[in-house]
């Protein structure tokens, strides 16, 4: 038997004595805070915590990522936007007060808002529309496609812009309403600061928009700051400054919010924090509609899923209701359609794959290759949980299933060679650029789109989507969806909501959000009296 020597005993005692208060303190901090409220700011500063940097420069013609949309939509405006505070897709005025569309969907005529000025003080006129479209093409950002079909922009007067397209496009208004859609930028400012890169350097740290706020600080990876534009044509916000500090760790962001140093967190915290914020007395959780979803895609280039039967058996084994309830909770609802919620009237684009675990059990018995990898993106805890649950279920069916993590870059690299990808992939949260079914179908189902990870393509679907784009006919979109569902490559698991946690004193949160933006219009937020 080993006996401790006296010095060892003394050392152990010292270490234990040091550990006890540390552990006790840690235990004290795991409980819910006793405080009941965090007070509203009196200095006009709203602090919105960002989880991770915005990822790209806050230039509206370049930015095509996630949380930086908050900066874009508060400093720039497009001609139209999605209507705030509604759960379906409705185009609403912004810098255009009204518009008409030709019967063949090639000519869009906009009447522009009077009295709008850019942040450099110059007036907004129809001339800015063509300049903005031209710049978007010139800088070749990821969302440049939205104006690639523009043949000409007529400016019969200062407040009328006539956009003529090369070909019929029923989704054009959706593209303009998208948070990634073309925004109006001061032609004078662009010319003055053009440099050798179409003002890209200038717009990394400043803005040339018309929005309610001006970008006054942009320290990549550290913080961004917006200052109220007092000559804004619309609602003047009670907040003179919006601070957007970047937090790298979600638990530190939560602590800052709990302490009141952060006023609001939008779409940044994992679902595991839902329970905590349903109990706090100082904050309110808002679950706001979006076009985002959790998706499951399978890889037809892998031997396991080379047949439609295998893919359908796998999709049938997914218990959507249980998964959504167990993992995603209140921030999601079970998806019943192929496109995002509300894209097709009456939900006619219904998903028909029914839950039937026996199909996969039978298939597993006869499968020659029993190895199966379910992937998820690194850092997406919801997707990770779903992947783990599915893997466990498949193991019970007799397969050798594992859940594996992949970096964002790796996920996007699969399209170069789908055989390098996993057998299936859980996409915890993804969405289209806008509310048109075309923008959904093209991106997720067409191999030339952006997020058909494993290039699972059905030419008939592509053909129908292109037909529907020209006409806007919903029944054609429904047929395209049905065609794609027959591939067995795709299942929409849930409609995800935008989970915003805000201090109790913050008001109008729902009114400041629209389902296309996933971020809030800060100028519409208020302070509880």
């Amino acid at each position, binding site marked *: 038997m080993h006996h401790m020597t006296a010095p060892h005993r003394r050392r152990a005692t*010292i*270490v234990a*004595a*040091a*550990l006890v208060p*540390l552990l006790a*303190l*840690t235990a*004290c*901090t795991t409980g819910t805070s006793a405080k009941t409220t965090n007070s509203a700011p009196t200095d006009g500063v709203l602090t919105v915590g960002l989880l991770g*940097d915005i*990822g*790209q*420069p806050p230039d509206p013609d*370049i*930015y*095509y*990522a*996630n949380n930086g949309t908050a900066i874009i939509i508060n400093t720039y405006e497009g001609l139209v936007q999605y209507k705030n505070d509604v759960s379906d897709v409705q185009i609403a005025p912004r810098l255009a007060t009204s518009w008409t569309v030709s019967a063949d969907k090639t000519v869009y005529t906009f009447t522009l808002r009077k009295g709008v000025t850019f942040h450099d003080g110059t007036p907004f006129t129809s001339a800015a529309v063509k300049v903005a479209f031209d710049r978007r093409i010139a800088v*070749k*950002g*990821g*969302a440049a*496609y939205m104006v690639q079909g523009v043949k000409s922009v007529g400016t019969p007067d200062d407040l009328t812009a006539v956009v003529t397209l090369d070909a019929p496009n029923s989704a054009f208004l959706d593209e303009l309403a998208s948070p*990634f859609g073309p925004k109006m930028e001061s032609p004078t400012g662009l010319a003055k600061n053009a440099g050798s890169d179409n003002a*890209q350097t200038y717009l*990394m740290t400043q803005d040339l928009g018309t929005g309610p706020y001006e970008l006054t600080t942009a*320290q*990549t*990876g*550290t*913080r961004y700051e917006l200052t109220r534009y007092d000559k804004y044509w619309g609602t003047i916000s009670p907040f003179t400054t919006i601070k957007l*500090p970047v*937090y*790298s*760790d979600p638990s*530190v962001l939560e*602590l*800052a919010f*709990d*302490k009141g140093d952060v006023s609001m967190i939008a779409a940044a915290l994992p679902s595991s924090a839902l329970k905590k914020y349903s109990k706090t007395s100082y904050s309110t959780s808002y679950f706001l509609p979006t076009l985002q979803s959790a998706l499951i895609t399978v890889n037809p280039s892998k031997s396991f899923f080379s047949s439609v039967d295998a893919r359908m058996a796998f999709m049938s084994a997914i218990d959507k209701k249980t998964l959504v309830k167990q993992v995603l909770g209140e921030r999601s609802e079970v998806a019943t359609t192929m496109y995002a919620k509300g894209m097709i009237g009456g939900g006619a684009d219904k998903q028909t794959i029914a839950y039937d675990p026996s199909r996969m059990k039978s298939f597993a018995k006869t499968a020659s290759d029993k190895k199966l990898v379910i992937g998820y993106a*690194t*850092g997406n805890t919801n997707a990770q949980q779903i992947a783990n649950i599915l893997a466990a279920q498949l193991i019970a069916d007799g397969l050798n299933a594992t859940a594996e993590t992949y*970096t*964002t*870059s*790796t996920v*996007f*690299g*699969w*399209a*170069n060679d789908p055989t*390098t990808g996993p057998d299936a992939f859980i996409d915890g949260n993804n969405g*289209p650029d806008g509310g048109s079914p075309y923008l959904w179908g093209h*991106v997720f189902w067409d*191999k*030339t*789109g*952006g*997020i058909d990870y494993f290039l699972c393509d059905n030419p008939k679907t592509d053909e129908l989507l292109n037909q529907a784009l020209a006409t806007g006919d919903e029944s054609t979109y429904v047929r395209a969806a049905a065609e794609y569902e027959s591939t067995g490559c795709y299942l929409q698991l849930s409609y995800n909501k935008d989970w915003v946690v805000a201090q109790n004193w913050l008001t109008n949160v729902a009114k400041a959000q629209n389902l296309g933006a996933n971020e809030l219009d800060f100028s519409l937020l208020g302070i509880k009296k």
Partner: protein
Amino acid sequence: MIAFLAKRLGITIVLLFTLSAIIFFLESIAPGDPVKAYLGANASRVDVLAERHRLGLDEPTIVQFGRFLAGLAHGDLGVSFRTHRAVTADFAVYLPATIELVVFAFVFAILLAGGFAFSAALRLPGSSVYRGILLVGSTAPPFLLAIFGIVLFYQQLDWLPASGRGPDDAGPTGFLVIDTLAHADLPGLASTFQHLLLPGLVLAIAPAIGIGRILRSSLESTLSADYVRTARSKGLSGGRVLVSHVLRNSIGPAISMSGLQLGFMFAGVVVVEQVFSWPGIGNYLANSIPVSDFPAIAAVTLVLGAIYIATNAVVDLLQAAADPRLVT
């Protein structure tokens, strides 16, 4: 000595070349598509392919490597796919933040190590609690220690901030201690130190134990030496014996260990910068890896490698200066 210096320089160049070749090799075999980071997640396949061609990413690895080396020779580290800025411009922002943090933490580590070593060697009463806390801290993973520090000093006690560097404007040098001093901005200087304390402490604890243990062993060995007993018997004060005789003869191994630990601190700064949202190259690297922002990853790796090699070279030089027999 000149031959020794030339040899070290040659080795440094070879090591950095090898490091950059390894980075390129790994990048060429790693799956992933950095162009999506550049264009955006939803970018179409046609746009991605066109951009890949424009950026030269579809060229053979050897061609890309040659271009990288040519750029490196001219001080051009390429353009970050993520920030769309020259990597050198990003470094001008992030590197001072990391250097400031590591230097602060290093000073912190030396002080903690000194306290650890002297209190143990001299058997100061009650000091075992201090050493116990340091030992416990050094055994905890840095991220856990960081979270614990934030919970204690930010959430519970409200003494220290949890993230960022403090004053908003970086000033001319990017080193906030220098910039705030240059502008006689005392509140800014105080805020800078407040922000440095917690990440600095987290970064310092493990190296402090490493250095402290070496120093304690040396001190204990020297304290029992005959010449120390002789010095005491001559009536020299305890302080003078400690500084002039004991410390001077014990510090050599601790200096070597300090050099090594300084290199390790630069390499280990990534986790600490992540938790404290410290805008340094560690955070820059952590944000660049998931999107395969190769120019940024390569540049940070090379710079960290160069710092590590340079630190060790300085230690070698100091040792060589102290013991000419090493210069052979």
